[in-house]
């Protein structure tokens, strides 16, 4: 009878250990490449903005990224800073495409535009959005490369 109890205890402990490992793996945040996010980045890079050489010749987002990375103080025809217009445009585009509130499946987003230099990566604009504090969200992410080592990254937290 003692042997039976010992075997049961041993099996129960092994089962609990496996269950613990399984649940830990399931609760960890995991990032997946998302075609939807990739399609968004592709589409948003072509977006005609309200900033340009003149009110008739408006830049697209790709051009704003290039100009902002070249000179962060550069301005549009309406004297707004190119980097600020870029940030505002991307922020509005993301919020128009997904809803981020308690009742929607998408909870938060985090976007970065980085420029790779020989030493490290620097932010072209300060990151948009935030990384939520709890780490059990599923992340759907994508990147879009631009010339001159610039990368646009977007993470959507579900």
């Amino acid at each position: 009878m003692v042997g039976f109890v010992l075997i049961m205890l041993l099996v129960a402990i092994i089962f609990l250990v496996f269950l613990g490992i399984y649940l830990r793996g399931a609760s960890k945040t995991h990032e997946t490449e998302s075609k939807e996010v990739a399609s968004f980045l592709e589409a948003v890079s072509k977006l005609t903005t309200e900033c340009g050489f003149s009110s008739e010749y408006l830049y697209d987002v790709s051009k704003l990224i290039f100009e902002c990375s070249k000179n962060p103080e550069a301005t549009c025809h309406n004297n707004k800073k190119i980097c600020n217009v870029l940030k505002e445009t991307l922020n509005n585009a993301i919020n128009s495409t997904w809803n981020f509130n308690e009742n929607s499946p998408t909870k938060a987003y985090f976007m970065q535009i980085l420029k790779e230099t020989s030493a490290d990566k620097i932010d072209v604009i300060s990151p948009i959005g935030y990384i939520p504090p709890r780490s059990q969200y599923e992340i759907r992410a994508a990147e879009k490369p631009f010339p001159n080592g610039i990368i646009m990254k977007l993470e959507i937290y579900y």
Partner: protein
Amino acid sequence: MKIQQMAFMLVAVMIFFSMVAIVYFMIVSSKISDTAEDLRQEEAKELARQMAGTPELMFSKRSSPESSVVDLNKAIYLKQHRAYQKGFWNLDYLAIERVYPRPSRQNECDAENLGTCRFLTIINNTQDLVGTQTAPVAIVWWDSTLGPGGDYRFELGRIHALASRP
């Protein structure tokens, strides 16, 4: 007596392992059904994404096609052709929505209001839109206010597609 105890113990061990196996297979089968559902949804979303790359909707400038950009001017033209509404793409519903800049009105697009409208419904063969999948796309239309004589204006949109039910 000892043999009887042993037999009871073996039966108990068997029952215990059977219960563990049942729990394990329940977890595994629920994961498989989740994965199958994800795949079905992904396939439907792929259909929505592919629609932006069809020659009938795709934007091309000076003979260089851009596969992820929907030409609204072409789409308006398609809407007027009945041939595309019945069985050409095997779709029950196909619409393009302007997302950003957000239009001020919620109206349907036509050739006159292309700059201010929100929806362009090309195919609408069903009342039941459950299962419609969407994908972000760039949309483009000819804006006569840009440039000296007009230019293409790119915006952010969504394509909505629902495959025909068998």
